[in-house]
């Protein structure tokens, strides 16, 4: 590429980004608006007499929901990694017979609509008494992440040199020891990507929460916002403040782990 860096592209890029992120800005703006100004026409484009009332409402009403979402998110990460990492080891390095069929099934699994899974889980949970429970939601949410995680681990571990395993065996290490002492540490980046997406998907989930946890005492934050919209449509500043708080994990991850995010999005869609 030519080393010249045209400044007009930077300006244009800033304009595009501003347009794209405008709804996000608007969410923050509304969250800081006084209730009396919410119905102003035209609305203030910048927060004039800003107020933190909305955030106060979040602290008073939504803290349990935030805690529930955190628990579900972390539970989902643990469950996903526990299942996917050994499976990736088996498929990618130990070359399990029938792995072609299994990877195929995992690809198909990713195409199943969440509504369908939700109905199936509902039918099962009704009998088992798992409706409105956190473990129930953790399991349901993990179905979004597990196929993705297995495929990601498999793709990475298949690229590891197999001689390494043989060397480990010569040194007297069994398959389990090779897995925990060599393969897992080497797969650190894959684990970060998997954990990040498993958390984010569980945190953002609406469909499973709204079907499997409709009457629970402990509802996740997504459902908290949804109920909020249904109950009091006048307090949009409080709704938007909750939305801002619910967006914090996404923002943190984007800042701290941007390259893992990009790695996850493109995994598989583009060959390198």
């Amino acid at each position, binding site marked *: 590429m030519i080393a010249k*860096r045209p400044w007009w592209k*930077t300006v244009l*890029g*800033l304009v595009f*980004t501003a347009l*794209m992120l405008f*709804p*996000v800005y*608007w969410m923050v703006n509304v969250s800081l608006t006084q209730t009396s100004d919410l*119905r102003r026409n035209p609305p203030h484009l910048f927060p004039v007499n800003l107020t933190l009332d909305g955030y106060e409402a979040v602290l008073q009403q939504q803290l349990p929901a935030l805690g529930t979402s955190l628990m579900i998110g972390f539970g989902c990460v643990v469950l996903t990694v526990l299942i*996917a990492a*050994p*499976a990736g080891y*088996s*498929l990618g390095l*130990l*070359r*399990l*017979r029938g792995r*072609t069929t*299994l990877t195929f099934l*995992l690809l*198909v699994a990713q*195409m*199943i*609509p969440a509504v*369908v899974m*939700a*109905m199936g*889980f*509902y*039918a099962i949970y*009704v*009998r088992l008494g798992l409706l409105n429970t956190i473990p129930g939601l953790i399991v349901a949410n993990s*179905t979004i992440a*597990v196929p*993705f995680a*297995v495929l990601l681990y*498999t*793709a990475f571990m298949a690229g590891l040199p197999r001689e390494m395993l043989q060397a480990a065996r010569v040194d007297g290490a069994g398959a389990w020891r090779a897995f925990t002492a060599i393969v897992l540490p080497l797969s650190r980046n894959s684990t970060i990507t998997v954990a990040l*997406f498993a958390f984010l998907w569980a945190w*953002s989930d*609406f*469909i499973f929460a709204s079907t499997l946890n409709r009457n629970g005492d402990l509802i996740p934050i997504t459902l908290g*916002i*949804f109920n909020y919209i249904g109950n009091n449509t006048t307090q*949009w500043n409080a709704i938007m403040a909750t*939305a801002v708080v619910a*967006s914090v994990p*996404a*923002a943190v*991850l*984007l800042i701290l782990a941007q390259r893992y995010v*990009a790695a996850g*999005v*493109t*995994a*598989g*869609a583009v*060959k390198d």
Partner: protein
Amino acid sequence: MTTTQPTASALSPLRGAAPPPGPRRRPRVSATQWTALGFAAPLLAYLGFFYAYPLWRNIDLSLHDYNVRAFVQGDAEFVGFANYADVFASPIFVTALTNTVIFTLASIAVQYTVGLALAVFFRGSFRLSGTLRAMFLVPWLLPLIVSASTWSWMMNSDNGLINSVLRAFGGDGINWLTSPDYSLTAVIIANIWLGIPFNLVILYAGLQNIPGDIYEAASLDGAGPARTFTSITLPLLRPVSAITLLLGLIYTLKVVDVIWIMTTGGPANSSVTLAVWSYREAFGTGRPDFSPAAAVGNLLIVIALVFGFLHLRFQRRQDES
């Protein structure tokens, strides 16, 4: 669930699956296979319990006449394909199917076009390009309820920002979410916004794989930007484009939450898609009707699988070439 969730395709293990070199005795191989099976066991159990079983329950639901009471007691009457027949005969079916087609095609066409334009724009690096590209991921990372409720408020008839801008320019406000003429457009707009980041990231990665020399050679031959785009970028990007569009299609077919949060499929079914219809029958009303909902859901699986197989065949062919 996010509209556009990345799919990891495990092509690499399939590709490099040549048998390991070196002498190997038979008992060793089978011992390794037992170990491999042991490590895969949690996944196999997981797929059985949490994928196969719910899916089987879903098929079971669609073949019986389930209501809430039968649900708990498990004595629903077997009705064969009657639920499917009811679904096809329902007046909502045609509406939902038409809306699904419009919603899906309009969403992916615009997402792809805008995503490609942005990817080309970001191709040459310039100051801040990396940071700005990262910022474009934000809509995709936000929980859907957040984006959907923000759009709802922006599209509010009386107090929404979009209408106040329209009025400021002398136009009339539009009842985005409450008029049957505009509700589908409204949810399409929000969904396009959600999908642009995914398209941008994948197409940008695809562009990075086109060698820079080709562009240099083209510019030495005197090709302008338009010519470069049509003769180099588009043809070389075709495999990536196809995958992006197919994945977009599969994900857009499944979308429930954006539409449900913004319009609940209304007013008067004007923004109902097959997925939303299924959700509404099962969970959206006071009286859950699981059997038709399951039938619609299974129909949706079939449609998604058809495109899914296209996607897999395409990838395999690309892999062989």
